[in-house]
């Protein structure tokens, strides 16, 4: 048991699981810090994963696909902000609608272009960072730009949210938009920025999943967008705590995969439940009270 956990391949597995979780969770965090609940993280991940697959298969340039998929993610973010900010429509229902739309689009285009309801043909993954891949053993992980970025993101988002003018204003939009507006802060601009950052980061998570598996399959996101939301809540909307929550969830998921291969005394389904049950317990307040941004979810 213990020798499995401290093995290099297990740690690699944890890091790989961690990447999409942390990208998704910080995405959700940026949106909620601006006071917009975005439960469509799942949808953003699905669509970006598919669009990366589509563009790579069609054109064959992974970097171009990365760019185009991010642009698609940004476009959907603006659409989302049109609903939630410009028109002040309920954010939860909008999120449900976006999830259905984006998952539906991916399914439809997969059938339309590749005549398959399960997966696309294989394609190239993103290129590795050239110098770092020369590092012995885990060169593969360290040389993966998105994995490296997701670790840097801990510092970037901590700094951005708590130490910059942008972050202060973003938070003020999420805590007390009326007060912020009266001080001359363009609340809508900051809320929109939060949503766009959210769209970019969650798309990056989807792109990474597609790129690392070199195929897009139906259900490959498998609720990761929701686990990301859970990690954000358990992390109490703080980048460093979210990091810990994501690390914990990815540890459990890696454990689950190991158990599936080796067999275990604990049914894997119970490990699957863990993140969700823990989130509820944290919310109920048995492990310290959590407090979302004060104006979270309220249209402004």
């Amino acid at each position, binding site marked *: 048991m213990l020798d499995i956990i401290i093995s290099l391949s297990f740690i690699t597995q944890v890091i790989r699981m961690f990447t999409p979780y942390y990208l998704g969770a910080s995405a959700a965090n940026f949106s909620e810090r601006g006071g917009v*609940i975005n*439960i469509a993280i799942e949808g953003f991940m699905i669509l970006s994963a598919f669009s990366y697959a589509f563009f790579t298969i069609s054109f064959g340039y992974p970097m171009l696909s990365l760019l185009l998929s991010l642009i698609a993610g940004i476009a959907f973010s603006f659409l989302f902000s049109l*609903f939630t900010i410009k*028109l*002040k*429509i*309920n954010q*939860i*229902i*909008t999120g*449900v*609608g*976006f*999830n*259905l*739309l984006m*998952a*539906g*689009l991916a*399914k*439809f285009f*997969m*059938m*339309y272009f590749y005549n398959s*309801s399960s997966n696309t043909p294989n394609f190239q993954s993103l290129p590795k960072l050239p110098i770092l891949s020369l590092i012995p053993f885990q060169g593969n992980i360290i040389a993966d730009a998105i994995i490296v970025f997701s670790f840097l993101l801990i510092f970037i988002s901590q700094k951005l949210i708590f130490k910059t003018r942008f972050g202060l204003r973003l938070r003020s939009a999420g805590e007390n938009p009326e007060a912020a507006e009266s001080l001359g802060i363009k609340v809508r601009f900051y809320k929109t920025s939060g949503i766009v950052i959210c769209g970019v980061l969650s798309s990056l998570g989807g792109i990474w999943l597609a790129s690392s598996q070199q195929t897009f399959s139906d259900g490959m996101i498998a*609720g990761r967008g*929701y686990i990301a*939301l*859970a990690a954000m*809540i358990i992390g109490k909307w703080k980048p460093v705590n979210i990091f810990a929550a994501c690390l914990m969830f990815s540890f459990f998921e890696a454990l689950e995969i190991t158990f599936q291969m080796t067999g275990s005394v604990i*049914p894997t*389904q*119970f490990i*699957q*439940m863990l993140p*969700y*049950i823990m*989130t*509820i317990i944290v*919310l*109920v*307040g048995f492990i310290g009270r959590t407090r979302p941004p004060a104006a979270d*979810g309220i249209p402004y």
Partner: protein
Amino acid sequence: MSRKFLPNFISVTVSVLLTLIIAGCFLYFIGKDPVMVFSKMFEDVFGTGYGIGQTIFKTTPLILCGCGLALCFHVSAFNIGAEGQINIGAFLMAVIVFYLDDYIGYFAFPVAVLAGFAASALWGFIPAIIKVKREVSEVITTIMLNFVAFALVNYLLMEKVAVKSTVRTPEIINSLFLPKLSEYIPSLQGSSANITFIFALALAVFLYFIIYKTIYGYRMRSVGINPVASKYMGININRIYILTFIIGAGITSFVGINFIFGYKGYYELGFSSNLGFTAIAVSLLAKNNPIGIIFSAFLFGILDFGGLAVNNMVPKEIMLVLQALVILSILITDKLVNKYITKTANA
């Protein structure tokens, strides 16, 4: 009611038209003839008894789940967890009927339905009590409980009751199958439409009266619209909230009746295929009015079966996109129509 009828009617009609236009452009863009696709769809849906029957069969669960969610939405409970509630309830229904039908025959049916209702209601009770006691938004808890439900059902099914090398429960005895509608209306021959549909219609009418014509319904809506005022009116808002939430969640389990007793005879993993989310749209489109839900469920039922009808022209997944577009466009048209009304009222 009547004062709000016209604007609601306008915004629903506009949103459906908007969806058709967007979908038409979309089809045109990918090189299909939208007129041909839609006419083929309507031809297959309404042209044959089988088409109508299958559409009714697809509509039934949408009415049931939509009605359950409508109750929750009336007390302002955003129940995103219908998917989990459905699966917990339907699974228990199938398991209980399988274990009991040898012993108590027909009585296994009501026992199973009640047990399913209770299980789904319990799954709704958890977010409701957490909301009331700890003021935690039901949105997140219901989403989380969805996944707990999937994993729990998966475990119980795969480890305990599943038929070997399948993902379903054993079949129920033949005498427990509900009568098909085609036994009464022969032209529906071959379709899976069954009397659950009649039950769904009756339930919708019944809930309409509860919501709009009884004191309980009045209190319910009052809690949903303004909990603070309701509290000072002497309404026990927590009790109304919890009770309505668990009844609503319980009703979603009836979806299992249509599938288990009306169609397959067993519970199957993934049978609900996002029904819990689609039903949110169904209820929303009808402004949470159960009578309206019958119609909006029909619209979604048509899209559901219509997708299969046009499958050789465009992939049937186009209907998933259409359903999502209906939701998003109703959100927009509602907002714009309301804006227009308040503008003209003030002028």
